[in-house]
Structures are given as structure tokens and as C-alpha cells.
């Protein structure tokens, strides 16, 4: 029981991170209908930026943790959004309106490019940083097993909740959110009604990248190690989460992320840890077979 509770906490933490990345996928898919394959690598870039920022702070003898976290988050969000914007501008915008596969291929190319440029400029070795947040609260001191929620886990879950609230508000209440939803429904019509479609799409990419940046900082804080290959698996799982929740749906992405995180931790804890990725994909296949539009997605009706 205690063990299961611990897994629940771990799963929620993991799921919150997947959810943050998944939103980037689902928004981009919603608005231009493509898999932004480089999104996982954007997340990886942000983790590297976080490592650099933490190291600078350590060198500058900054000891206040809230200050450090805020600084790292701002720096990481700024640069990562720039990356998100640049990727869209160079690799996807020229291909808008061509075949469906062309942007996918250029996205895969972009993903390989980002991975290798990080490997070249930052080195291929794993980057460890000293733990930023240690310790936590003991929730339940059961005999033989202590259930603990770490400060970093709490940080991740709280940040995700705050971000999700802010984000939902932004999409439903602000002018940008309205434009974003308009573009999602019908880009041509939106442009006729005076919505700057290009700018909205750029901004969507930057938002997605900013959320990925938060996830990148959280991963750096949580695991303390980063390497240039983390983007691939995280990206695929986040995309799986987006599909599981129903692609194009924001609450769906978060729900999918949490489910994937939970499935992964429970599977690894009780069944075979080495097959945890198989479980993720297996469940994805099952969901898609039984409910092809995902959990919260609207079924796609194709009109002729």
C-alpha cells in the first residue's frame, strides 16, 4: 500500500512532465495538423540551457533556491521559445500547404540536426549537476517503507497545476487564445477575418516551446543529469500522451501525460522494468484500436 502510494507520487511527477511536453504537440497538431517531431529535441535543448544556467549561478555563488529557479526558468523559457520560433520559421513555414509528409520529414531532419548540434557544441557525455532541491516531506512512515514526496516532485506538480490554470485561462479568455482557436478551426476563414495566421502559428510554437522549457528545467532539477539523447524518448512518450488524450485537446494532453506517467511507474514497479516502454506503446495501440480519437478527442468525421 505504502509502496503503491509512492509509485502514485512518482507517476504523477513523471506524468506532469510528459503532459507539459504533450501540450506542445497537441497545440501544434491542432493548428497546423502536423507532428512536430523536433519538439522532443526542443525540450532537450531547454534542459541543456538549464544546466548551463544552473552552473553559472553556482559559479556566481547564488544560494537562494527560489531566486535560482526563477532565473533559470526565465532564461530557459526565453531561449527555448526562440528555438521553437526558429524551427517553425525555417523548417515548417516554407512547407505550409504542401503535402502532409513533407513537413514531417523536415521535422525529422530538424530533430536529427538539433540532437547533433547539441552533441557537437555541448559534448556527448552526460552532464550531472549537483542536486538543487534535496529532501522532502515524509507523508506516511509505514513499517518497512517510507512514503515521501520530494521537494522537487512537489515543485513539478505545483508548477504544472499553475501553468495549466494559466494556460487554460489564456486559451479561453485572451484575444490570443481566441485567435489560436480560430486558426485551429479554419485558417483561411480566420485570415479573412483579420487574424494574423502566421503570427498566431509562430506564437503557438513559442508557447509549446516555453512549456517544454519548463519541463526541461524540471527534468534537470528532478534527475540532475542531462544528455543529448533525452529528447527522443521523452518526445515520443509525450506524443503518445497527446494521442492518448485525443490530439488537439489540451486537457486531453494533460490527462494523457498523467496516464502515461502512472502506467510507466506502476509497470516498472510491479512488472518488468525493462519493458516499461513496451507497456506505454501497447496501451497506446489498445486505446487507438478501441477509441481511435483518443480519450477526450472529438471523433473525426470526414466529409466528402
Amino acid at each position, binding site marked *: 500500500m505504502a509502496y503503491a502510494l509512492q509509485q502514485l507520487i512518482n507517476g504523477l511527477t513523471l506524468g506532469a512532465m510528459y503532459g507539459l511536453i504533450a501540450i506542445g504537440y497537441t497545440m501544434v497538431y491542432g493548428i497546423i495538423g502536423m507532428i512536430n517531431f523536433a519538439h522532443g529535441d526542443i525540450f532537450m535543448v531547454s534542459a541543456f540551457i538549464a544546466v548551463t544556467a544552473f552552473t553559472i549561478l553556482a559559479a556566481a555563488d547564488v544560494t537562494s533556491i527560489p531566486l535560482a529557479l526563477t532565473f533559470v526558468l526565465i532564461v530557459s523559457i526565453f*531561449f527555448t521559445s*526562440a528555438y521553437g520560433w526558429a524551427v517553425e520559421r525555417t523548417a515548417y513555414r516554407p512547407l505550409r500547404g504542401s503535402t502532409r509528409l513533407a513537413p514531417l520529414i*523536415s521535422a525529422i531532419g530538424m530533430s536529427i540536426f538539433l540532437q547533433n548540434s547539441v552533441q557537437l*557544441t555541448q559534448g556527448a557525455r552526460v552532464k550531472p549537476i549537483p542536486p538543487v532541491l534535496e529532501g522532502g516531506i515524509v507523508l506516511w512512515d509505514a513499517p518497512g517503507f517510507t512514503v515521501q514526496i520530494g521537494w522537487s516532485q512537489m515543485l513539478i506538480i505545483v508548477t504544472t497545476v499553475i501553468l495549466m490554470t494559466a494556460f487554460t485561462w489564456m486559451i479561453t479568455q485572451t484575444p490570443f487564445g481566441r485567435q489560436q482557436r480560430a486558426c485551429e478551426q479554419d485558417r483561411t476563414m480566420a485570415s479573412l477575418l483579420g487574424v494574423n495566421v502566421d503570427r498566431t502559428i509562430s506564437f503557438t510554437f513559442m508557447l509549446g516551446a516555453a512549456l517544454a522549457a519548463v519541463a526541461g528545467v524540471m527534468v534537470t532539477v528532478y534527475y540532475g543529469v542531462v544528455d543529448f539523447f533525452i529528447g527522443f524518448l521523452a518526445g515520443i512518450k509525450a506524443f*503518445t500522451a497527446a494521442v492518448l488524450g485525443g*490530439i488537439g485537446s489540451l486537457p486531453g494532453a494533460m490527462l494523457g501525460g498523467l496516464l502515461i506517467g502512472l502506467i510507466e511507474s506502476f509497470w516498472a514497479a510491479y512488472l518488468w522494468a525493462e519493458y516499461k516502454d513496451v507497456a506505454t506503446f501497447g496501451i497506446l495501440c489498445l486505446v487507438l484500436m478501441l477509441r*481511435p480519437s483518443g480519450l477526450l478527442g472529438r471523433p473525426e468525421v470526414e466529409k466528402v
Partner: protein
Amino acid sequence: MSAVVFARHAMTPAERLRDAGWVAFVGLILGIPLVGLTTVDVGGRLGVETRFGLLAAAVAAVFAGRLLLRWAIDQARNRKQERDRASTATAADRAHGAQRVVNVLGWVALGASIALPILFSDNRYVVDTATTVLIYVMLGWGLNVVVGLAGLLDLGYVAFYAVGAYSYALLSTQFGWSFWEALPVSGAMAATFGILLGYPILRLRGDYLAIVTLGFGEIIRIILVNWTEFSGGPNGISSIPRPSFFGLDFTRSAPEGSQTFAGFFGLEFSPMHRLIFLYYLILVLALLTHAFVSRLRKLPVGRAWEALREDEIACQAMGMNTTNIKLSAFAIGAMLGGFAGVFFAARQGFISPESFVFTESAIILAIVVLGGMGSQMGVVLAATLLVLIPEFGRNFAEYRMLLFGLAMVLIMVWRPGGLLAHREPTVRLNALDKTAATQEAAR
């Protein structure tokens, strides 16, 4: 999508400079965290190292590169406009001419590929690289059936390649099967996997299909890594027997009661014999694949694939059995991938899950799409390009995958339809093409 296209006016030099300056500024922002700063290991802890000189050089390079690129694009556009004005040829004529050029090129390529090992009979590197190109050509042709013809986006094609390779490796090392016995069985095995994968995902379309196939590819790889008793785990399977030439081995000395290839033909032993044999073997396999797929395209099933690609609902309305069409595409594509896998295992003599990662699937898909979906010659061109880019990059080895990724993006942006776009609509609406159609009819 939005059909409004504004004619771009020619840029003045000041505009060019401003444009390049803007791009260089973006480059600077992007470069600061990755190029300008890096973390290095200083006595067990990370320390920051600044590389602002390198960053400045990179930004300058971006500035100059952007200026040059804009200039080159404008030049190319002007030339194209002039050419369009000068020539009276219509789009249809040009497409027809291009098709003829491609056909001629095809024959030239065939001749060159037959002559290559004769011309380079003592150059191990050239023959080896050419063999790699042919493996990718074959994989590209196999995937072309699924993606290019049937329009089903498969991101896990490497799984079938792996199934073929492991089938041969296990059959030969565990049961002593020869290459020629194992080839059809392994192909059938891969086809079975194709149907196994295809069946549950028949209802999915587009990107859902892509992600499930990707997941399937990963599942196969993870199983190969973790099921050590079956597949040897991460260490893979080694000492896989090489194919023989009608029972003649390519070894220096033959075992009791048999002959070597060199001994039988009275040649002096040379390790190149095997390489050249392998080269011709994959050439024959690839040509058979080509003949097979070209035939299939003219058969009802091939027509059905292309119809399915264009419009699934129309297919169903015409009473076509989309289940069978999809499954046959998956099965045949998988079988061809399996054959390529068998050859790969036989050529390397060693396989491990390392060879069947997602990047491999991405490369094969890139070959199909870069070549122009559905175009057989396009696959050859793209496979050659994508194998040779990293090979040329070997001199500055760490940059090769970087160049590869960049090339994928640039080629796509430059020619979104692929290098040899093949799909010509048969019915058009605008006036220009109507005249083309009447000309066609008058001829």
C-alpha cells in the same frame, strides 16, 4: 489552404543587408546558450566555459550565408522567369520531357551499377559503399509500396528489416539453414509481422497510424534488446554464415569435400570476390524488387493501392475491400524489408539491436519522401544522396549526422514534392492546362 500568393518584388541592397542582419541576430540569440556557452568538467564539477570568439564567427557565417542564399535564390527565380517567358512549352510537356530524362537516367544508372565492381574491382571502399546504397534502395522500394503507393505512413519500417535479419541469423546459426533456404522463409516471416501489425491498425489513419507504427518498431527493438535467450540481447548475434555461390564458399580454404569459389574457377583467392558477389547479389535482389513492384503497380492490387492513397472514402464507395488492400500493402512492403534484412545480416555477419533504431526508419522514410513519393527512380537518387552525404562527411566525422539532418530539411524546403515528383494529376481545371490538354489531344 490560403491560396493568396503575393509576387515578391526584387530586394534592394539595403533590404538585403537588413534581412541578413535580422537572420544573424536570430542566429546570435540561438547561438548564445549552445555555441557561446558550454559546461565542462572541472575537477568533478561542472564549470562554464565561454566561446564568444566561436559564436562571433558563427554569426558572421550566418550573415554572409544568408546574403549569399538570398542572392542565389533571386538569381534562380529571375532565370526561371525568363526561361518560362521564352519557352512555349506547357507544364505537361515539361513533365513529359522530365519523365523521358528520368527513364534515360534509369538505364544509365543500371549500366553504371553493373559496371561498377568491374571498374573498382580492387577498391574495397567503393564496392562496400555501393552495396550499402543498394540496401537502402531496396528498403526504399519496399517502403515505397506502403508509403508511396498505398499512402500509409509507416514510421516503424525498420522493424521488418530487423525481423528479416534476425530470422536469417537465428535460422542459420541455430538450425544451419543456408542463405537461399532462409531467404524466402525470412521474407514470409516479415510479411506475417506486417499483417500482424497491419491488422489492429486498419481503422487508424494518418498520424495515428504513424505513431503506432513507430511504437511497433520500438517494441520490436526493445524485445530484441531485453530477451537475451532469444536474440542475444544487446550483444546481438555474431558469426552468421555468409551466402555461398551455388555451394562455393568465399573462403581461403574449403572444408573437407567442397571447393572454394576461387579454387573452382582457378582464380587466386581474394577477399574482394566475396564483396563483389555480395554487391551483385543485392543488385539482383533490388532489380527483382523493382520488377516486382513495377508489375504490381499495373495489376489491380497496385491500382487499388494508389486509389486508396488518393481517397479512402471513394475507394469504399466503389466497393473496394480496403482491409485487404491495406494488409497486402503492409505484407508486401514488410516482405521486401525482410529480404533486405536477410541480406544485411548475411553481409555483416553480425547483427545487434543497434542497427535497427528509429533513426534507421527515419532515413528510409526520408529516402522515399525525398525521392518523390511513389517514384522508383527518385528512391535510387535519394538513397544514393543520403548514403553519400554522411560518407563524404566522414572526413569531418562528427559533423556527418548534423549535415544529414540539415540536408533533409533543406531538400524538403527546396523541393517539398521530392526530388523527382511523380504524381501528375490527370484532370486539371485551369485554362493553361486546358490548352495543354487540347494540344495533347491534337497530337
